[in-house]
């Protein structure tokens, strides 16, 4: 016990000099010291802002540089607001399931995981920009550029998400033993449930070439992600429903540059 306390104290001292790259190779003990440390939430938030903004810029720039700037603001906002909205329920679920952490420490653990996602995405941003340079632009007659970039984003986000969750699970296993799997599943479920809705509110991220460049869609706060999925499902099984939900072509005259429709 005394040895553990000494080790944790030593880890906390080392964590005070933590740089962002150390998050990538942190052991569960170091992550625990990190989440217990005063100011770790602010530092994780800063890393999320940096990493997600960089990746957001590379994500939106294919459609339009202005959308790149918008997404550089929106992607950190999405990650931060998802963590904040789920902080209370994640902290409570963790305590019920066996992790004796205060709610702030649970939030810090989730934010550290999000920060790792953001840092991995930031490292992949130059590659995404290179792919953006290599694929046909938004004015091209084919959708191949849109589709290749879409797949690249899915691969990058999936990779970053899997790595961060594997790391989070390793830490949870050291902190909560057998309860770790339940806690991870509970956190994942709430984060995905809320994150999907918030990403629907904050769209567009990637930019449909047929839609104008906007910070938020005009119907950002009408309906929700799950209604939208349900109506798509109805459209697939019932063509009449599909016609009813189909949106008329855009009549927006504020964006009349060539190729922007």
């Amino acid at each position, binding site marked *: 016990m005394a040895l553990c306390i000494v080790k944790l104290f030593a880890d906390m001292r080392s964590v005070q000099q933590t740089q962002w790259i150390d998050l990538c*190779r942190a052991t569960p003990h170091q992550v625990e010291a990190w989440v217990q440390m005063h100011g770790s939430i602010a530092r994780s938030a800063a890393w999320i802002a940096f990493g997600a903004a960089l990746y957001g810029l590379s994500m939106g720039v294919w459609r339009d540089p202005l959308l790149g700037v918008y997404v550089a603001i929106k992607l950190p906002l999405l990650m931060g607001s998802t963590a904040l909205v789920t902080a209370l329920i994640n902290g409570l679920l963790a305590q019920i399931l066996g992790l004796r952490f205060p709610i702030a420490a649970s939030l810090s653990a989730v934010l550290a995981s999000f920060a790792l996602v953001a840092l*991995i995405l*930031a*490292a992949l*941003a130059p590659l995404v920009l290179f792919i953006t340079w290599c694929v046909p632009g938004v004015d091209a007659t084919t959708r191949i550029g849109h589709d290749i970039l879409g797949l690249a984003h899915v691969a990058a986000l999936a990779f970053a998400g899997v*790595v961060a969750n594997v790391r989070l699970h390793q830490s949870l296993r050291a902190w909560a033993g057998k309860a770790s799997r339940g806690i991870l599943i509970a956190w994942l479920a709430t984060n995905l449930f809320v994150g999907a809705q918030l990403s629907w509110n904050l769209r567009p991220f990637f930019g449909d070439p047929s839609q104008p460049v906007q910070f938020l869609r005009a119907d950002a706060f009408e309906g929700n992600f799950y209604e939208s999925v349900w109506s798509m499902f109805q459209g697939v099984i019932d063509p009449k429903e599909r016609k009813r939900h189909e949106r008329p072509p855009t009549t927006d005259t504020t964006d009349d540059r060539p190729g922007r429709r």
Partner: protein
Amino acid sequence: MSDHQQPTPPTTDPADAEPVAPLAPDTGMAGLADALLKRPRGLIERFDRGDVSAIEWRLLGIALFGYVGYGVLVGSFSGGTQWWAGPLKVVAVGVGASAICLPSLYVFSALGMARVRLRHVVDLLLAQLALSSILLLGFLPVGWVFSQSTRSAAFMGMIHLGLGVIAMSFGLRLLFAGFQLFEMRRDGYVRLWVMIFLITSLQLTTALRPILGEAETVLPQEKKFFLQHWGESFVRDIED
């Protein structure tokens, strides 16, 4: 990417187990080339100890010399503007792919638990580039023999690609050895990075085309994926 991979086993090569003195910080270009080929561990030990500014510039010099030399051979196939565009583009492929992939290598090596700073990663990439370029210089006569016996750009492209991949694979082997000396425990992340690096390099050869053949413009007017470009080049060559 699984984090449950077995830790990389310690090397069993007795030569690697012996302590190696770090390379002197003022080693010249010839000494560096010699170290890259015969004593890479001494060079990596030097990276770890610091005081490497002079070595970094010399490694970059070796890399540029090798790539420019090989680029002249590549450009000589078509002549004309390719005499200067070929070497420039070969350098751009080597240095450009490394620059694009540097941030991901830094983060991926850290995910593999390597005890590296950004400067170590830059140094290892420079060593990889320098070793690849030395091997490319060694392949110059081989490439020249083939270029004298064919007018098929697609065939020559495949020859250069093969030689380039062989040279690069030795460079990447050095990179792995370097990360193992920096205590990398999971090499899956860097293996994934190698795939990304190779695809980036191959795509750059297409994005900067023509590197070997002739075209009306120095850079392409149409954007293509490298597999599509190669396929079309082969079909055109067969039809001709």
